[in-house]
């Protein structure tokens, strides 16, 4: 072992010697698939694009207020159906071309163009109606209907009209996806093994770090060793088992990264015995969230500002839509659970529950990628239900299969699916719980369908004021906490690690690099 240690240390030194000159390198979970904002499909994609592009509006990480770096002033028009934007002057694209209202309208039209096969664009087709330029610096964007939060809805990244030769049919394999042109703090270029970002001067951006490199981190432990050797300066996501080791080091800092995400166990409400609300409630009581959190994520009991806080509904506790009247269930309550199960007509014989003579057996699935954040959560959940007297088989599901089967409502043969939802700017949960048939509910995993829920979601859609929207979602929260299409688990912060030479590195929720201008590195 001794000799190997030497090797590692030596490695660290060479690396330190090699990676100087203000250039910063960090490991992300994987390489981005694309740098074209319209085709972003993973958090990695979103993070890298945040450096290259300006979103029209974004939430400030300091005061959570809506801000824009490119819009100078704005006013609502047509009774709230449209918004008139006046752009800041002298903003330039990375290739030096001026940034104008034509670019805003081009982006809108590109998203509305059915020839642009982008899931993100599809999302905007329900929101936006069109865009008109009024001179070089004014654009008027019209909505499909009146929204209570119109500017929140304009969180898209602006694309350069000239880079697409004004052709609004934007296909993913255009070279733009690898060598994009934006107005963001950094110009990005995609290599086979990572992305190199280099600072670009602009009136609205002044990055203090001249160069930033993103590489794939591979094995989580390997990443930790690398940052300890100063072979790299940052890791986006540190796997729980290694967090203690990092926080023990003075030259390293663990930083909380709020992914605006909450975890759940979706229940197949179409399948017996889970079609019975009492059974679902019983399972909610059986689940010991405290134990899960402790064993899987490694949160010590009574640990303050833990990265993992329980939720009782489909929102994070910091969200305005979270209904604080609904209590969270932290510990299991077996008495209540068995009472409910007996009410539901299940019988417990020889320690196992059976319904209509047949022993109850659950097929559990979990999104594979979540295993690094919460190692073996699937096993622990399974064990808890097993201990309570249910048979179970567990499966890890690849991201591809998840997108292909689970999100499209084809996962009929599963009883439970452990997953998580992340939210960017708008916490719109409608497509998770809306009835699919209506064309909405595009991410309704087990095709959960309740008239009352649809009504509440509709109320939120129609809401013209924040309070109305809040009210609708509070009611939704309460209803779901009782009907339980999901067993709501927790909000889980990711932990990033950065060398302490990296200073004032504010990490924005979800988008990560929104405040990159303020980052400093004296390495």
């Amino acid at each position, binding site marked *: 072992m001794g000799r190997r240690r030497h090797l590692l240390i030596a*490695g660290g030194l060479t690396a330190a010697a090699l*990676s100087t000159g203000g250039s910063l*390198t960090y490991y992300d979970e994987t390489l981005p698939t694309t740098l074209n904002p319209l085709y972003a499909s993973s958090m990695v994609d979103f993070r890298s694009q945040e450096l290259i592009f300006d979103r029209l509006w974004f939430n400030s990480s300091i005061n959570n207020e809506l801000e824009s770096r490119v819009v100078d002033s704005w006013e609502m028009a047509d009774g709230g159906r449209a918004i008139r934007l006046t752009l800041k002057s002298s903003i330039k694209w990375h290739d030096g071309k001026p940034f104008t209202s034509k670019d805003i309208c081009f982006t809108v039209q590109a998203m509305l163009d059915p020839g642009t*096969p982008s899931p993100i664009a599809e999302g905007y087709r329900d929101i936006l109606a069109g865009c008109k330029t009024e001179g070089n610096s004014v654009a008027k964007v019209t909505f499909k209907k009146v929204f209570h939060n119109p500017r929140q809805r304009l969180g898209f990244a602006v694309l350069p009209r000239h880079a697409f030769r004004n052709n609004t049919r934007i296909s*993913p394999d*255009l070279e733009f996806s690898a060598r994009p042109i934006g107005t963001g703090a950094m110009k990005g270029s995609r290599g086979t093994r990572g992305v190199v970002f280099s600072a670009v001067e602009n009136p609205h951006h002044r990055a203090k770090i001249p160069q930033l490199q993103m590489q794939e981190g591979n094995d989580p432990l390997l990443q930790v060793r690398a940052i300890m050797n100063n072979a790299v300066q940052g890791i986006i996501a540190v796997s729980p088992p290694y967090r203690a080791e990092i926080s023990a080091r003075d030259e390293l800092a663990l930083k909380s990264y709020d992914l605006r995400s909450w975890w759940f166990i979706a229940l197949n409400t179409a399948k017996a015995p889970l079609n019975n609300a009492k059974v679902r409630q019983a399972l909610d009581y059986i689940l010991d969230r405290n134990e899960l959190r402790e064993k899987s994520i490694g949160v010590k009991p009574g640990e303050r500002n833990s990265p993992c806080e329980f939720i009782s509904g489909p929102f994070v506790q910091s969200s305005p839509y979270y209904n604080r009247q609904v209590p969270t269930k932290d510990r299991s309550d077996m008495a209540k659970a068995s009472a409910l199960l007996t009410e539901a007509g299940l019988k417990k014989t020889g320690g196992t529950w059976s319904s209509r003579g047949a022993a109850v057996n659950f097929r559990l699935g979990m999104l594979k990628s979540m295993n690094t954040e919460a190692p073996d959560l699937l096993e622990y959940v399974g064990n808890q239900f097993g201990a309570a007297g249910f048979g179970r088989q567990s499966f890890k599901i690849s991201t591809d299969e998840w*997108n292909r089967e689970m999100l499209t409502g084809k996962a009929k043969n599963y009883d439970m699916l452990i997953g998580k939802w992340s939210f960017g700017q708008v916490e719109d949960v409608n497509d998770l719980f809306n009835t699919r048939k209506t064309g909405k509910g595009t991410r309704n995993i087990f095709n959960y369908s309740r008239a009352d829920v649809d009504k509440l979601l509709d109320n939120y859609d129609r809401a013209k004021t924040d309070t109305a929207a809040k009210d609708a979602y509070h009611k939704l929260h309460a209803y779901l906490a009782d009907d339980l299409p999901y067993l709501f688990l927790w909000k889980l912060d990711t932990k990033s690690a950065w060398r302490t030479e990296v200073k004032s590195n504010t990490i924005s929720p979800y988008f990560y690099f929104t405040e990159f201008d303020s980052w400093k590195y004296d390495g």
Partner: protein
Amino acid sequence: MKQWWLQPMVRIGVALALPLAVPLIITYLIWALPGDPASIICPPELCGGTEELAKRWNLDGGPYQFYTAWMANAVTGEFGNSWRVLQGVPIAGLLGTALPNTVMLILLSLVPLVVFSAASSAGWLSPRLDPLFQTIGLVPAVVYGLVAAAVIQLTFGADAFTEDALRIRLLLGALVLGVADGALAGAVTGTRSLFDAERKQRYVGVAILRGETELSNTLPNLASALAGQLRARTLHLLSGAVIIEAVLQIDGLGDFLWRGTLKQDFGLVLATATGFAVVSAALLAFQGLLEIFVALHVRRSPAQVSIEEAA
């Protein structure tokens, strides 16, 4: 020795056909499978814009049209852009970087094989060492490979993908490829047995009595057999290169093929598979040509007497 030219000609024929055949086979496989090609190549849920893709790849026109179109582009060096692995990056460019790396990797990994084989057939390497080579070869290449990769990542960190790092990756990769998966043991014993068998031939002993050397007599007669072995070994190495490049993150044909397969980037897979076909076609052609050369060399005679007359 009747029709001595037949076998080499077959080889060269196959070599010429291979780069055409491989994409053809893949194409027909796609159409043979149930479901429409576009969504096999890239399920809509994964890619987005499957119909766009169908147009782009001329998948609507049936296998023949697709194949001819693809070939026509390929000949002009146009392979389109990567769809899912490196979205928007021209595949031709990727092949441009991958091919030299893979070839270099293979050539480097042939060095230990050739050296040790030569040594063993010259009798400088005792057969008692064989078990050692076999034991080394027992450890799967992936294990060595990942250890090497980790060392590089820890040592180079930010600069893990610079030219220098790549050189080291290639060297380590070649080393691993050369010794692991029984490559070395196979090569050593294989060549040795060839030479030993030839040495036992009576004419060698007599040649020595004529003051000639052993090698000058045996080597020409073994050339084609050796070429055959060399090709087999190289193919084995190419096969292993897929794993090694993936693990050591070397931008080679194998690595792009692997990533393409994982991400279902069909364009990339088709291109890289064809790339492999070209490489092994080159090997085949080399073997064929060498066989022809040897046959002609064997037939060399000072008196102007044509082969047919003599045969």
